């Protein structure tokens, strides 16, 4: 395999592999950004062309796929798909709203914190799929504008997602590629998240929070919600929360156990599927497993597969080394400038394009800088810069993250359209504030 990996490309018609792979890479990126064709189709075709044109052979293409990332994503998606059926997340949201006696600003705060915490352990899309409907229901009953709530939840999901290895796909990719553990993310990224949340919520308070009010009658309607009604299956709730807790423990102790995150997530998914199907006949089991697998975002999984191969193509052809050399030349090989540049470029790029292809490209670019900075162990500030930039940058615009679009979709169907430009006018500067905080954090802690 190693020999294959190092083998020279035999590109059709004797074309230069660097040119062919660069054209394919740019074309794939451009079509993904245009959103005219489903991104899994685009990445799949890009990957196929990398192989059929001869930039990569099949073994090299397969070697380029990070199966740890795919396993972790798939395992967590199955776990969350099963867990969410029991209604526990909605239970927590209603419980939180009642804890603050249905005061409008209190609810905004609680929903933001709940969103951030959920996002740290679930994917952001799932989190907002769970919290946005409750928010619209509650704000409808309170007779308050749902916009500040949804805005805060978008920010909270992307900020919270930055805190852990499993919170956001960029972190999963970085952790998997570099071998950073769940605890590494927890120790290095989680500490800055509360401060960014605090500042973000303070700004939201200044803009909208002071104007939020509701009548006693409206608040009383919220207090009449029975959070227990949200729990649709108590047994399933116990089973799924137990397995989720085991999986998180597994992530925490992964290093001493010599386990990869994908193994833990897939094992957890298998275990939960088993215990939720005990006592069922074969047909019922098939139907249940089919339903659970059906909720996995296969478009995202296949997008990753294609993307890994496209990036492997440009890596194999040498484009990423050229990019890395260019970055090092630009920054003069200074770690501080390089880290801050990666943080800011990642943030701005992630605000306007999908952060997944960006991070997939940046990982090998940063890996190529190891020799400049005295070895792979010294690259840690760059990884945290990339992770923070990619995750927080998603807040910069409505298209910055999938979760943002999910919230906008719910809002629009409920008659509260979130417009692109007005959102960005507040979101982009606020995202930059979070990047300023992240810059200070990276500088003070690592540089």
């Amino acid at each position, binding site marked *: 395999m190693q020999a294959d990996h190092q083998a020279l490309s035999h590109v059709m018609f004797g074309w230069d592999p660097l040119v062919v792979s660069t054209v394919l890479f740019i074309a794939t990126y451009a079509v993904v950004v245009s959103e005219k064709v489903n991104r899994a189709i685009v990445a799949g075709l890009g990957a196929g062309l990398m192989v059929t044109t001869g930039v990569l052979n099949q073994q090299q293409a397969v070697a380029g796929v990070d199966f740890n990332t795919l396993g972790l994503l798939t395992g967590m998606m199955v776990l969350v798909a099963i867990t969410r059926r029991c209604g526990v997340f909605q239970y927590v949201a209603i419980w939180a709203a009642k804890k603050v006696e249905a005061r409008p600003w209190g609810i905004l705060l609680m929903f933001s914190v709940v969103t951030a915490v959920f996002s740290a352990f679930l994917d952001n899309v799932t989190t907002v799929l769970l919290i946005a*409907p409750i*928010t*619209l229901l509650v704000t*409808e009953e309170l007779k308050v504008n749902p916009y500040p709530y949804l805005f805060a939840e978008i920010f909270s999901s992307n900020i919270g997602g930055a805190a852990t290895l499993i919170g956001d796909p960029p972190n999963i990719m970085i952790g998997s590629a570099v071998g950073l553990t769940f605890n590494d993310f927890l120790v290095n990224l989680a500490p800055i998240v509360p401060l960014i949340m605090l500042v973000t919520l303070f700004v939201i308070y200044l803009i909208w929070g002071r104007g939020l009010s509701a009548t006693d009658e409206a608040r009383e*309607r919220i207090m009449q*919600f029975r959070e227990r009604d949200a729990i649709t299956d108590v047994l399933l709730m116990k089973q799924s929360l137990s397995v989720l807790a085991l999986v998180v423990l597994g992530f925490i102790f992964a290093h001493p156990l010599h386990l990869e995150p994908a193994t833990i997530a897939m094992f957890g998914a298998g275990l939960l599927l088993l215990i939720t199907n005990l006592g069922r006949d074969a047909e019922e089991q098939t139907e249940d497993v089919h339903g659970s697998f059906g909720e996995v975002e296969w478009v995202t999984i296949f997008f990753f597969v294609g993307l890994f191969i496209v990036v492997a193509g440009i890596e194999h052809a040498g484009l990423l080394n050229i990019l890395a050399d260019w970055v090092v030349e630009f920054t003069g090989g200074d770690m501080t400038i390089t880290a801050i540049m990666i943080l800011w470029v990642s943030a701005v790029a992630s605000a306007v394009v999908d952060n997944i292809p960006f991070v997939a490209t940046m990982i090998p670019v940063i890996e190529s800088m190891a020799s400049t900075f005295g070895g792979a162990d010294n690259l840690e500030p760059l990884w945290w810069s990339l992770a923070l930039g990619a995750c927080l940058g998603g807040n910069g615009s409505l298209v910055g993250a999938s979760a943002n679009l999910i919230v906008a979709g*719910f809002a629009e169907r409920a008659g509260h359209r979130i417009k692109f430009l007005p959102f960005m006018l507040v979101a982009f500067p606020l995202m930059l504030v979070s990047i300023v905080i992240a810059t200070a954090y990276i500088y003070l802690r690592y540089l």
Partner: protein
Amino acid sequence: MLVKDNIIHTKVTRPGMPVCEVFAECGRARVQALPFVDDRGNLAGRVTLKNIMKFACLPDYMVATAPLLGSFLSCVDNAQAKIEEVLASQVDPYVRELQLSIGSDEPAIKALAIMEKNDTSYLFVVDGGEYRGIITIQGIAEQMSRMYECSKQPG
């Protein structure tokens, strides 16, 4: 048993028809959908009760939070006004694409098989582009029940 033995004859919906007429006709004929005929008289789509309810009365967030809904909600107080608003509106925004249809001389078992395959409980009966009526699982079940009762009667 053929499709034509089970046809339920209904009116068709047309552009500009109020939703209240659709509800009344569906209730009378005990069907969940009616065909939609365009200005030229061509069969152009269908209007289903489920679709009208979904888009006129049920925002996504209510569906997602269904177990939490209760009689204390403000939308319950506004129900009468909402009903009047929905019934007075026109069917046009609720028209969906035409689904599979079946000919009246086809066997009823084929209609059942098509319904099962497409996860629906009704099919429009169309001969040569002309709407004849609707066949439903409920109608077929009633017909089967009548046949069974007849077979039990002496003589």
